[in-house]
């Protein structure tokens, strides 16, 4: 950690094996980073640069090779990340443990990417899993009981034998109950105070961020990092649990909308150090969560976002239609772009969506703009529809909408008007020549039969164009005069 304006505390814990080709790798069982003790199989937060929301993972291995300190992290997935593979209800605070083999199971990260500890309790009824107490469940940051196999992209609540080569036992609930420990306050008192204290100083750091979510995102690391010197020094298993999170956090956990200004690591690290002092004055004990200074190292986790890129638009339409998340909106201004519509929905309904205008330039009325909007959940889509239909007016235009894709036929083979000559007596070569002649693009010459026929078509389409423009003008006039009549 060189070149940083302040040095973040670090010390190794217990050593384990040595390894590596040149025997230059030392494995460890624990370490203390910014006064927080981390051990194998702890659940931790890792920040990705630019993303207001941290990833959650379990430490599988800890080691140092030459000057670099690394950790191997087994990932948890948030419901949003595996949206397309999820069906059915998702429990509150639920996340999913990766299993199987393949990309996305686990990654090696610089140790400095760790941003804090959190508690994840396993609710699986499997006999290998120590059943958590109701209190443990309540105070936990997250819970899981389902596994997402990254190899075949399926969800299951069956506990696998091994994950990433490790016996699954070590990944389930630790044998001893996690206890909150504070040197001179009882648990209840601390909860309250911490809750209040945590929320208070935070808004300062949130000053640059207009949205609540980043605030919330910061809080978990805060409350996760409770360890205090006396407690930590106890070599026995009394680990530190998270404080019940202030309500703000609960919203923060689900993915924030795209419109939240991207908060970089830098912002965080600049604010954090000063808070370190303040917090330790307000509350006894809890130290500030270590937020890796960007200057230190690539203080960021391996970018996982690419594994779950959003589906391409056309596929998304299909998928969302099946899940009831697709809304068909009409009567928009045809000039609205996709981002205008997304912005509109956000402002009017406080909902996130992906949207696109879908008018056909030849066959749709330019007076009436149509769009598809895809929401994150069926519920959101339902809410949007009922609200918009109840009376949303944009730029003087009342919008209306309905659910689901329009039924469109697949285009059939050839164009109406492309004629074929059916002649069985033609030889194969003649047929091929003819085919080539037909498909060679050209300007039709006046001395051919084709030319006369082509002219027929040009006549038809001129008439067509006129008819459409007359109709569209009539529509535009109707709308204008109507609007005037109702006294807008």
């Amino acid at each position: 950690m060189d070149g940083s304006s302040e040095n973040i505390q670090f010390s190794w814990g217990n050593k384990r094996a040595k390894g590596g080709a040149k025997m230059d790798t030392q494995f460890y069982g624990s370490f203390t980073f910014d006064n927080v003790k981390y051990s194998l199989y702890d659940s931790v937060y890792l920040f990705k640069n630019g993303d207001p929301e941290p990833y959650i993972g379990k430490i599988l291995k800890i080691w140092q090779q030459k000057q670099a300190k690394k950790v191997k992290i087994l990932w948890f997935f948030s419901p949003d990340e595996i949206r397309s593979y999820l069906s059915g209800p998702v429990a509150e605070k639920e996340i999913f443990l990766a299993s199987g083999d393949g990309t996305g199971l686990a990654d090696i990260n610089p140790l400095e990417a760790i941003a804090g500890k959190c508690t994840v309790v396993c609710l699986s009824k499997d006999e290998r899993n120590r059943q958590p107490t109701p209190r443990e469940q309540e105070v936990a940051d997250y819970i899981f009981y389902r596994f997402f196999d990254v190899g075949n992209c399926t969800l299951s609540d069956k506990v696998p034998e091994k994950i990433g080569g490790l016996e699954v036992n070590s990944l389930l609930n630790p044998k001893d109950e996690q206890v909150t420990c504070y040197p001179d306050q009882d648990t209840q008192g601390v909860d309250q105070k911490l809750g209040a204290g945590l929320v208070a100083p935070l808004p300062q750091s949130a000053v640059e961020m207009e949205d609540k979510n980043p605030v919330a995102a910061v809080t978990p690391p805060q409350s996760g990092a409770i360890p205090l010197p006396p407690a930590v020094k106890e070599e026995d298993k009394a680990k530190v649990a998270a404080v019940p999170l202030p309500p703000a956090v609960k919203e923060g956990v689900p993915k924030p909308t795209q419109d939240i200004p991207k908060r970089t690591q830098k912002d965080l690290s600049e604010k954090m150090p000063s808070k370190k002092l303040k917090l330790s004055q307000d509350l006894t004990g809890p130290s500030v969560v270590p937020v890796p200074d960007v200057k230190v190292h690539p203080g960021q986790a391996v970018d996982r976002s690419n594994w779950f890129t959003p589906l391409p638009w056309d596929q998304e339409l299909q998928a969302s239609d099946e899940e009831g998340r697709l809304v068909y909106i009409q009567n928009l201004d045809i000039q609205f772009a996709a981002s205008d519509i997304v912005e509109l929905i956000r402002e009017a309904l406080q909902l996130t969506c992906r949207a696109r205008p879908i008018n056909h330039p030849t066959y749709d009325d330019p007076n009436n703009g149509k769009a598809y909007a895809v929401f994150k959940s069926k519920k959101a889509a339902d809410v949007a529809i009922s609200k918009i239909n109840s009376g949303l007016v944009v730029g003087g235009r009342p919008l209306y909408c309905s659910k689901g894709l329009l039924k469109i036929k697949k285009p059939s083979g050839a164009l109406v008007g492309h004629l074929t000559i059916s002649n069985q007596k033609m030889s194969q070569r003649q047929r091929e020549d003819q085919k080539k002649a037909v498909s060679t693009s050209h300007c039709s010459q006046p001395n051919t039969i084709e030319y006369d026929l082509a002219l027929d078509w040009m006549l038809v389409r001129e008439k067509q164009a006129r008819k459409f423009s007359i109709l569209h003008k009539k529509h535009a006039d109707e709308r204008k005069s109507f609007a005037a009549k109702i006294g807008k």
Partner: protein
Amino acid sequence: MATSDEQVEQEYADFEARVKRTIYIDHLSPLVTSQIIKAALSQCAKVVSSEFIVNYTIPYDIPAAALVELEDESQAKAAVDLMHDFPFIIGGMPRPVRAAYAKPEMFRNRPRRPGLDMELRWVKEGDPEYDGMNKLKMLAKRQAAEQMALVKNQLEEEEELATQQQETLDENYKKYAMLEDMVRNGEIDNLARHYEINLHHD
């Protein structure tokens, strides 16, 4: 996502420049690929890219359409003029394609247009404007139905023309085929003798 105003304007200005050198071709055969379009236009323009329009809204069998970006504005003009003055055939006869200058709203991936009226209001039951807004909605729906009816009508007209042309073509073809046969197998000489026509002029 908060881009500055200047950025938005610049993006849109770039977009408008692109629009100016793009043409909209429709009445295209669904079998036509972008390669074919590129080759077809090579006589008057260089094609930079082409994007086919996906049909999301029309429940009928409609011709394909594409937005074809050319190298510059003058090429776009040349192409549109050419296809307006002459029947230009791509990938099948005899129905020609139609070309027009592209418009911003044709691009589904367009950037935001600065200065749009996005003023939104809620007009709920009980508000004085509620009735009026509902009637406007009804009007919009009626107009949409009228539009679809016209589309249907046009497509039917086209089908009729196509069928009629196909019939004429088949008939003519049969005629020519018959003549060709007769010449080949000598029947024509017999006929000529019968009608006392001299086929072989000097």
